[in-house]
Each structure stands twice: as structure tokens, then as C-alpha cells.
């Protein structure tokens, strides 16, 4: 998307937001009719701000928050028409709703089909060009008429100070930006002059001669919006009237008649004025102004106080965007939806080339309520949303994924779109899980299964932890040291760790939260939790009691990183790296994968290519500055590719050496040509021989790890082995 439509979109958004604010300001202005006009005048600053500045602060007390349009994007930009012109947000009932099937863990399919950004010109692009032409035309027109005015003023003659006289003009005005001058018509009556000068002098003092051109520039920017023209007109009027009032304040009420006579005579005698050109400064709306002058009374104390409060409050309320906080509190389902979206975004952003710069919900609707499915009522919400990637061409679109005409990613994947299953507990909402529209199961049974699976899992975990815990705690009774109990029942201890895993950890932490973790029970659970947490445990003080430890616990989140990516020029290496990453990586929740292959040879026969390599792979998680190796292997493999009709090699077959006694024979077995199956002499011996000392691979592996971390902006990271020796550090001098 080019720059212009984006700019226009921003302007359009501001224009729409400002229109609402204009209506608000006009309403407040009506209430302030009796108050001095300076208050009405001051109110317009809000409109000016809204028309000029796409950003604002958020507040719970926002006028815009009253309107139930929740479209605040993550940049603090209040977006009413997301990306300007969008198609209507989806149909009301997602297709295939009757046929649902639950999927517990939504994760992105990783199959690859490269998306291409669609460069078709859209309505928004066309409109933005029209908008630009209008702006240019109006700007040119203003400059030309300003030059014309200046020409008419040549040569004006000095009257006194900064006041000039000319017979080419019909009314008095201020002209100029840096050194504004007052111009008066040559034939002006002596009696009128002091009033005219007082009025124009007031404009200069209040910098009105700068405000009006600024307002006009903003008007040009929003020329397509009639409300903006209207507000410019009203603002000009408020400016003039408050200027008149300020003159009366200085001259006193006695000057009313003379002052309004001057206004009248000036307006009758003039034939044309540069008022239509806002770059010069003329009069407007004489009749209304004269009436205003005649009716003007110096405001009482209370009028001023009330007007100041009204204006102050209005400015605050009209300037603020509705707070996200407020939306979330009012609408917990929305915060759950944002959570789901954030998860999806995190998924996308695992690829370092992808950045999601905007997000919006296009549909969030209560679809169904199940009162009796579980212990608590269950609500099912349909969620549809869009994510805007910075560069769409970088996004790999999996099957069923879609992009709208403005380059936003739709949430749909091959499973359809998500339905949030929410359990309502004492008015609070908890996301029980997600089912998808695209699967072939009825909604009710899908939700049932989801809840049952969740309950079962919870019950199983509870049983596992509690049963093993009670066995551990059963003996030896006489010991006071919890470690004595653990040593006596190592099998049960390991059971909780091994079979309970993350769920057991969550269960035990919940027990701490409930306060159900006293004495021996607490001590054993603390030990288990510490081990399960590993590097995520931020508490280093071992002297704390279990409850103290839990109070101090603040789980360190791991930094999600993508898998290693080979960026060298070699085709074969590239193929091998890709195959090895696919072979060794897990989901991002299981850490990121680094591979380092040593290639022993590649053999092509017909359309088949077979590459032999031993790969040192490792899976890591990064907690703060600490690397944790969660898996790894050094394995010889034969990788076979087939050349497709475009000349690209597609992975066909991946053969690994087997474990134990089969290890060497399995290598000899796969060291053959890809098509004929002929044995390749000497290759197997080379591979087996290299395995005795793979220091070169270790070196390459850590080099790749270093490169990968550096490429992802990680400057500090250390890997320690089980003996506490540092194996790898980003700050090792030989890497610098």
C-alpha cells in the first residue's frame, strides 16, 4: 500500500472522529450562548486538535466512549472506519456452524503457500487521489488570492505605527504573518477609526491572524467534510464576536452604540472584502455581531466560573479517546478476544520478518448460551478479526487463510474461524477453550467435549499429584527434612514431574494460591514447582518457607524466538538446513531450534537428489539472559529430494540412523544412490568415523546459535551445563 491512501485513511478517520466532536461542540456552544463568546471560541481548539492529530490520550471519561464503537487500535489511534473503506464485517452466521468440531489448541498450520500482495487499485486509492487534487486546488487558490490581496495593498500608505491606509479595500483587516499590519480603507470616518483600530489590535494581540490561516489549512485538509466547513464558519464568527466583546471590556459599555455604528458604517461602505480569503483578516456576519455587541453584558462571576468549568470539561472529554481499560472492564469478553488475538499475533511474529502493526475485531457476538452443560453457564462467542502485517509479502499463508482487499489478514484458517467458549463464574468470564467453525461436529457436542476434556485433564492432574504426594508424605515419619521424604519416594516424586508436567505445576501453584500448602506438603510442592519451573523461577533465596517463596515468585516468561534460518548462498546447504529444522523443531512453546549440519556428499540421479549429513541440533528456551537447552541430538541422516517441474527440490524422504546396536548398520544401509540404490563406497565409513569426534559440528552449532541470537537482537545469553560450567555465552571474547 502506498503512502497516499494511508495518509487519506488517517485524514478520513480524523475527519469522522472530528465530526462527532463538532456536533458535541455545537451542542455545548448552544448552552454557552449567554456566556462570553471567548468560551465558544476556546471550544474550537478541540475540533482543531481532532482534525490535526490522529493520536490522543485515552481516558475513561471520553465522549467517544459513549458511542459503542470499539475500534481503538494498538497504536492509540482512534479508528472509526478501520482503514477507511472496508467491506461490511462478515455475515452473521459463520458457514458450517452446525458442523463443529473442537480443537483444543489452536495453532497455526505450518504448510506453506506463498501469498502475493494484490496490487489492484482500490476505491480508497482513487478517493485519495481525488482528495489530493482538491487539496492542491484549494491551496493554489488560497495562495493566488493572498497574492492578489497583497497586490491590492500596494501601495498602502502609512497612517501610524503598524496601521496602513489604502483606497483599494472596503473594510479594515489584519494582514501578514510575521509582522502583521492593520489596513484600513482610505475613506474611513475619523469617528470610526479608534474602534476599528481597537478591534484589529485585539486580533493581533490574540494572534488570531495566525489561528485563522491555520484553521483554514486544516479546512483544506478536510475539504470533503461539510461539517468542517460549517465549524470553520462558526469558529470565525465566535472569533469576531469574542474580539468585539474584548473591545467592549476595554472601552466600557458606554461605547456600545458608537462601536456598533462603526461596524455598521464600515460594512455599508465596503464593496468587497478579503474576508473570503482567510489568509487576510476581515469581518463576518455584521448583523449578528451588532446584535451581540448591543446585548453584551460584562459576565458575572458565576457565569465565568461555570463557563470555564464547562469548557474545561468539554475539552477533556472531547479530546480523550475512550480508554481501552474501560472497554475491557465493561466488556470482559472483549479482553478475552484480545487475548486470543495476541496469541495469534505472537504466533505470526515468531517469524522475525513479520510484524503485525495493527489489529481490529470485526465481529464479536454472543452466539449461544448453554445453561446446563457444565457447573457454570457457558457462553459461546463468534470472533472474527483482522491483523495488519507490516509487509504482507513476508507472510506465509497456510491453507484456508485469507487476506482482505486492504491487506489485512483474516483470522480464518483451514479450521474456519474461532468460537470462544467462555464459562461464566460469578459474573467473571474465563476462557474455557476454542472450537472452530470449520469442523464437522455440532456446536453443543463440541463444547461438551471441550469441557469434558478440560475437566478430565484437571481431574487426572489432581489425582496424579495428590496420590503421589500422599505417598511421599507417608514416610519416614520421624524425619523433619522434606528431602528425606523425597529421597524415600523418588519414584512418586518423578511421577509428578514426568506425567504431571506443566499441568501439575499449574495445579500446585493453584494450591499455593488457595493457601493449601502448609508444612511438609508445602515444602515438597515447593521443591517440585522449583524443578518444574527451572529457569523461570526468579527466587534465588533457598531459605524461604514455601508460602514466602510463593509470595516472592514472579515467573520469568521466556522470550519466544523463531527457529534458526540459513541465509547462506549454497543451495544444498539451504535444503539440508530446512529439512533439519523441520525434523527437529517443535511448536514455539517447546523452544526454538538451532541446527548445524556437516554435509558429506550429495548425489543426484534422475530427478532425485540425496544428501548425507550429520546434524547437531539443539532446542533452547531463553529466560531473560539465561539459555535453557530443552533437547538436542547429533544424528547422521540421508535426506532425499525430488526435483519438481519448476526445478525446485521437494523433500521426499528423511532417513535417520537408528539407536544402539542398529546404529552403524542403519547408516551403511542408507548410504546408497537415490534411484538405483547402489552402495556408495566409503561414505558410511566417513560418516561413522566423523561421529567419533564432532567438535567441528559443536563449533558450528554454537556459531549458528550466536548468529541467531544476535540476529534477533539478543545481546546477552549464557548456557550452562548440568555441572554449572558455561558452555556458551554471547559475551565470549573470541566471538566478538
Amino acid at each position, binding site marked *: 500500500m502506498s503512502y497516499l491512501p494511508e495518509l487519506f485513511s488517517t485524514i478520513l478517520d480524523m475527519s469522522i472522529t472530528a465530526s462527532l466532536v463538532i456536533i458535541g461542540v455545537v451542542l455545548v456552544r448552544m448552552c454557552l450562548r449567554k456566556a462570553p463568546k471567548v468560551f465558544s471560541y476556546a471550544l474550537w481548539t478541540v475540533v482543531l486538535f481532532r482534525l490535526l492529530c490522529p493520536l490522543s490520550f485515552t481516558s475513561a471519561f471520553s465522549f467517544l466512549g459513549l458511542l459503542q464503537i470499539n475500534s481503538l487500535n494498538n497504536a492509540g489511534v482512534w479508528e472509526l472506519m478501520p482503514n477507511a473503506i472496508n467491506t461490511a464485517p462478515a455475515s452473521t452466521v459463520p458457514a458450517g456452524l452446525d458442523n463443529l468440531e473442537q480443537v483444543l489448541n489452536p495453532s497455526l498450520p505450518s504448510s506453506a503457500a506463498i501469498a502475493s500482495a494484490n496490487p489492484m487499485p482500490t476505491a480508497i486509492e482513487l478517493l485519495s487521489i481525488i482528495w489530493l487534487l482538491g487539496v492542491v486546488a484549494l491551496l493554489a487558490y488560497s495562495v493566488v488570492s493572498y497574492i492578489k490581496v497583497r497586490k491590492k495593498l500596494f501601495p498602502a500608505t502609512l497612517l501610524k505605527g503598524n496601521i496602513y491606509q489604502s483606497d*483599494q479595500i*472596503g473594510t479594515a483587516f489584519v494582514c501578514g504573518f510575521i509582522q502583521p499590519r492593520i489596513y484600513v480603507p482610505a475613506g474611513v470616518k475619523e469617528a470610526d477609526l479608534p474602534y476599528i483600530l481597537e478591534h484589529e489590535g485585539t486580533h493581533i494581540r490574540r494572534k488570531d491572524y495566525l489561528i485563522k490561516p491555520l484553521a483554514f489549512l486544516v479546512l483544506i485538509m478536510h475539504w470533503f467534510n461539510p461539517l468542517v466547513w460549517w465549524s470553520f464558519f462558526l469558529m470565525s464568527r465566535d472569533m469576531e464576536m469574542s474580539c468585539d466583546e474584548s473591545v467592549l471590556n476595554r472601552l466600557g459599555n458606554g461605547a456600545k452604540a458608537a462601536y456598533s*455604528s462603526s461596524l455598521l458604517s464600515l460594512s455599508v461602505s465596503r*464593496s468587497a472584502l478579503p474576508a*473570503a480569503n482567510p489568509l487576510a483578516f476581515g469581518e463576518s456576519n455584521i*448583523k449578528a455581531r*451588532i446584535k451581540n455587541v448591543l446585548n453584551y453584558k460584562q459576565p458575572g462571576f458565576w457565569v465565568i466560573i461555570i463557563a470555564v468549568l464547562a469548557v474545561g470539561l468539554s475539552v477533556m472529554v472531547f479530546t480523550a479517546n475512550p480508554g481501552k481499560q474501560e472497554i475491557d472492564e465493561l466488556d470482559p469478553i472483549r479482553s478475552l478476544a484480545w487475548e486470543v488475538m495476541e496469541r495469534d499475533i505472537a504466533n505470526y511474529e515468531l517469524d522475525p520478518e513479520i510484524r503485525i502493526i495493527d489489529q481490529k475485531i470485526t465481529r464479536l457476538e454472543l452466539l449461544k448460551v448453554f445453561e446446563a452443560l457444565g457447573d457454570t453457564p457457558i457462553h459461546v462467542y463468534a470472533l472474527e478479526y483482522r491483523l495488519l502485517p507490516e509487509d504482507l509479502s513476508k507472510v506465509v499463508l497456510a491453507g484456508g487463510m485469507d487476506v482482505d482487499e486492504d491487506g489485512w489478514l483474516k483470522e480464518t484458517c483451514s479450521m474456519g474461524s474461532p468460537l470462544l467458549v467462555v464459562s461464566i463464574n460469578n459474573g467473571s468470564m474465563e476462557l474455557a477453550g476454542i472450537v472452530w467453525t470449520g469442523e464437522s461436529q455440532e456446536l453443543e457436542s463440541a463444547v461438551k467435549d471441550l469441557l469434558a476434556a478440560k475437566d478430565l485433564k484437571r481431574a487426572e492432574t489432581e489425582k496424579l499429584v495428590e496420590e503421589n504426594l500422599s505417598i511421599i508424605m507417608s514416610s519416614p515419619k520421624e524425619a523433619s527434612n522434606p528431602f528425606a521424604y523425597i529421597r524415600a519416594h523418588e519414584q512418586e516424586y518423578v511421577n509428578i514431574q514426568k506425567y504431571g508436567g506443566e499441568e501439575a505445576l499449574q495445579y500446585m501453584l493453584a494450591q499455593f494460591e488457595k493457601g493449601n500448602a502448609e508444612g511438609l506438603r508445602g515444602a515438597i510442592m515447593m521443591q517440585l514447582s522449583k524443578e518444574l519451573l527451572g529457569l523461570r523461577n526468579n527466587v534465588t533465596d533457598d531459605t524461604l518457607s514455601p508460602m514466602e517463596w510463593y509470595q516472592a515468585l514472579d515467573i520469568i516468561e521466556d522470550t519466544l524466538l523463531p527457529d534458526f534460518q540459513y541465509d547462506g548462498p549454497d543451495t544444498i546447504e539451504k535444503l539440508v538446513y530446512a529439512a533439519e529444522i523441520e525434523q527437529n523443531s517443535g511448536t514455539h512453546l517447546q523452544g526454538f531450534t538451532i541446527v548445524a549440519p556437516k554435509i558429506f556428499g550429495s548425489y543426484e540421479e534422475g530427478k532425485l537428489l540425496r544428501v548425507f549429513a550429520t546434524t547437531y541440533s539443539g532446542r533452547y528456551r531463553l529466560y531473560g539472559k539465561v539459555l535453557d537447552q530443552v533437547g538436542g541430538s547429533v544424528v547422521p541422516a540421508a535426506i532425499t529430494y525430488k526435483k519438481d517441474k519448476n526445478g525446485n527440490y521437494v523433500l521426499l524422504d528423511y532417513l535417520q540412523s537408528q539407536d544402539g546396536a542398529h546404529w552403524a548398520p542403519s547408516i551403511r544401509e542408507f548410504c546408497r544412490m537415490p534411484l538405483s540404490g547402489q552402495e556408495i563406497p566409503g561414505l558410511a565409513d566417513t560418516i561413522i568415523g566423523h561421529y567419533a569426534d564432532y567438535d567441528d559440528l559443536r563449533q558450528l552449532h554454537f556459531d549458528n546459535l550466536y548468529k541467531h541470537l544476535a540476529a534477533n537482537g539478543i545481546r546477552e545469553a549464557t548456557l550452562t551445563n548440568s555441572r554449572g560450567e558455561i558452555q556458551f555465552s554471547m559475551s565470549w571474547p573470541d566471538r566478538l
Partner: protein
Amino acid sequence: MEKYKLFDAEYKLACLVWDNEPINSTDLVRLCAEQLGWKKSTTYTMLKKLGERQILQNREATVTALVKREDVQKYESRAVLARSFEGSLPIFLTAFLDDHRLSQQEAEELKKIIEEAVE
């Protein structure tokens, strides 16, 4: 004999010349700066204009008038120029931003309102 017609600014310059002629052009520039607020270039431009119309002449840095004060008349109306200026504005803009000019009737009405308010 038809009189020469001058605009306000032209007339004021001519007056300065009549009052002080013959006057050195440098002195005239200084005088114009003091009394009319003109820059040097403004004065020379005006001198050239009136020179072309055979009203003033500037010879060897001395400025004199070629016509008598009695033969010159100031323009009373600026309608011609004003109209040409207005003609450059799109109608909708003038209509939208500028109040319509007061008719004779409206002016009378307003006058009455002012008088009543003061009493």
C-alpha cells in the same frame, strides 16, 4: 479639460512632490519612508508609474511635477478594482464564508436597532 485621476497612494506621493519640488529622489525616498511607510523600491515603482503617465518626472535624480495640483482629482470609487478582485473568488466560497452585503433596507433596520438600544 479632463482632470487627471489618481488613487489615494498616488495622490499622496504627488502631494509630497508638490510641497517640496524640486526634490532630490533620495530625499523623496526618505520622505516617503517617513510619511507613507514605503520601502525604497515602492517609491521608485510609483515614481516610474506616474512618470509614464506624465504626472511626475524624475530627471537626473531630481523629481518635479508635470501637472498642477488643481488639475488632479482623487478617485472616489474603487468599485472597478474591487469587482475584479471579487471576480476571482468562487461564488460558493464567498457565499459560504462571507455574509451577504447589507442592503439599504437592512442597514436602516440595524441603525434603528442601535438607536433603540442606546436610548
